[in-house]
């Protein structure tokens, strides 16, 4: 009984962390069609911003939930103005440019923070469930990602800005004809995507040892999740994160962590073989 509860929490946690890792990319790649290979580095920067802010005496939750997304979003804004805006609609070029960016960010982070592993300790204590101890921070991650998805849904569905952004991503020329500036909307959307990546990196920072190359560990999972999700932004994100999270955790428990990782990849291959356009091209069609 206790064990099944622990397993349930771990599965929810795995799904939640996949949602977190992929949310920023879902906006930048899923919506804007920018293949952002520097996504992992945006997350890494979120982590470093948090650690630095905490080191300066800022409350850890403020650092994670406010400062890190803001600063990484601003960095994203600069990147968009200098590089990305020249490349919209050119998939391969964005890929090359953002790959270069990721190398630059790794280099800069190494220069500033050095190459040793750093980190902060988890701000929420663990607690007992029957005979088991669970990491209390898992619940925090689950809550953050639920709020994140709800927030994204509310913005895209309920606000005028969300509607304009969605419209612009589909037909920029039409949005322009209606009097909106696609240039600005793209800029704002990229800011949001970067901020989401920064938030993910920040929230995960207390769980991991951070090095400038940490971003590399997330990038593959984020792309797999977004691609398997398919065209619908939020339904795709949640459904593919749920499938992969459940599969990898079940195999991790039943067999080993190596098999868990492999199972995730095998699941992705099968899923994309069965639904080449992603889950939401077949199921949940027309959903957001």
């Amino acid at each position, binding site marked *: 009984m206790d*064990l099944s509860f*622990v*397993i349930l929490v*771990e599965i929810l*946690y*795995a799904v939640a*962390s996949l949602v977190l890792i992929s949310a920023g990319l879902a906006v930048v790649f899923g919506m804007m069609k920018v293949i952002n290979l520097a996504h992992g580095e945006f997350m890494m920067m979120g982590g470093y911003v948090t650690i630095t802010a905490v080191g300066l005496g800022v409350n850890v939750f403020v650092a994670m939930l406010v400062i890190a997304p803001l600063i990484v979003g601003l960095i994203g804004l600069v990147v968009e103005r200098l590089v990305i805006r020249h490349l919209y609609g050119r998939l391969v070029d964005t890929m090359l440019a953002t790959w270069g960016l990721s190398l630059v960010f790794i280099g800069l982070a*190494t220069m500033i923070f050095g*190459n*040793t*592993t*750093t*980190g902060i*300790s*988890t701000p*929420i*204590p*663990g*607690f*007992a469930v029957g*005979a*088991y*101890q*669970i*990491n*209390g*921070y*898992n619940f925090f991650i689950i809550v953050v990602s639920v709020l994140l998805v709800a927030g994204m849904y509310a913005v895209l569905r309920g606000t005028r800005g969300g509607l304009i952004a969605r419209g612009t991503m589909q037909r920029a020329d039409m949005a322009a004809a209606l009097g909106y500036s696609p240039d600005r909307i793209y800029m704002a959307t990229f800011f949001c995507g970067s901020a989401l990546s920064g938030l993910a990196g920040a929230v995960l920072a*207390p*769980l*991991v*040892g*951070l*090095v400038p*190359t*940490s971003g*590399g*560990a997330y990038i593959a999972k984020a792309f797999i999740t977004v691609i398997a999700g398919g065209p619908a932004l939020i339904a795709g994100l949640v459904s593919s994160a749920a499938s992969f999270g459940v599969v990898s*955790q079940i195999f*991790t*428990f039943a067999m*080993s*962590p*190596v098999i*868990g*990782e492999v199972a995730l990849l095998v699941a992705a291959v099968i899923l994309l073989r069965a639904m080449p356009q992603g889950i939401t091209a077949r199921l949940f069609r027309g959903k957001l």
Partner: protein
Amino acid sequence: MSLNRRELLGGAAALTTAGLLPRVALAADTIRLGSILDQSGPFDAYGKPMAMATQLAVAEINEAGGLLGREVEVVAYDTQSDMALYSQYAQQLTRQDRVDVVHGGILSASREAIRQTMRKTGTLYFYNVLYEGGVCDRNIFINGVTPAQQVEALVPYAMNNSGKKVYILAADYNYGQITARWIEKFVRDNGGEVVGTDFFPLDVSDFGSTIAKVQTAAPDLVIAPLVGGPHLSFFRQWAAAGMKDKIALASTTLGVGNEHKVLTPEEGNGIMCAYNYSQELDTPENREFMARWAAMFDGDQSMHEIAVSHYHGLHTWAEGVRKADSIEREAVIEALETGVSITGPGGKVTVDPQTHHAILDVHLMEMRDQKMAVIETLPQRAPIDTQAVCDLGANPDDNTQYEIEI
């Protein structure tokens, strides 16, 4: 063109040494020492202190009058954590720079790349890093701790402090796999039982389900040969789940790159380990070494296990050259095979003629407030794992890395 470059590099190395030291009275000709280390890239936390150890040791050797009345000159290459550069620079060192000895290599893969080149070109090679054991080659001398040297000491100590049931969490590549087998053997030898073993790819940083699995198996002790930044997360998540005071922890790798300074005291306190070196070793040699290091590098405190192994290796080589009274490869090997020994910051280090590995002191330690407090010193442990398979006296032509059957 290449000549210019070589002179430039050699000159730069000589300048760094010369600037800091009174110059030795020199014969015209220097002894050339090749160094290949990752001084940038992901492994630089290991490589930078090793490069500093090279500078320090060579400065000391020159200060003491050089070797054979000649100054030692370092020809150094930074391999930037890129395996391809290892073979390239190894070739360059032997064919162009014509060095007399090569010290360097960090990962096992880099060692194998260098080792074969050195063997072919007949250049003496020193590899000075904690590694998985089993290399048997007369041309190489190895100063790092092997799993048996370390695990044989650590397992009984950790089991005495906790209990008989052990769970192993290891990195999923040859170091982790081989070390896990040694742990299993010594757990059984000490009347214990391994209740579970899990391996983790090097980039896994999520250990939540593992922590639940470990609790299901309810061991008394977890031994964790985990490696690198992502794996450091385990120790953090373990503490975050509140497991630290419930099940004891030991590791064969934590602290080698000064990781204990990254973990907070609440996360690190009480983790047991066993190495050849700790900054906390209270010996005159270590105090003097740390003072010299700090003086040379502006107060820096990044010396760690493998930097010190490297430092031992350089001095062992110098001792071999002095004893041989020659820089010829064969003469130096024969001199070292007489069982040359030095006393360094990690204690006494002796060359084992049978395997060309080091016989050294292993210190049992416990992390306390971001330090590795030394609990007990086990003097002069032999590399029994490699000794079981390798006898260079009987087979001088051997060129194998043995996978030891346990």
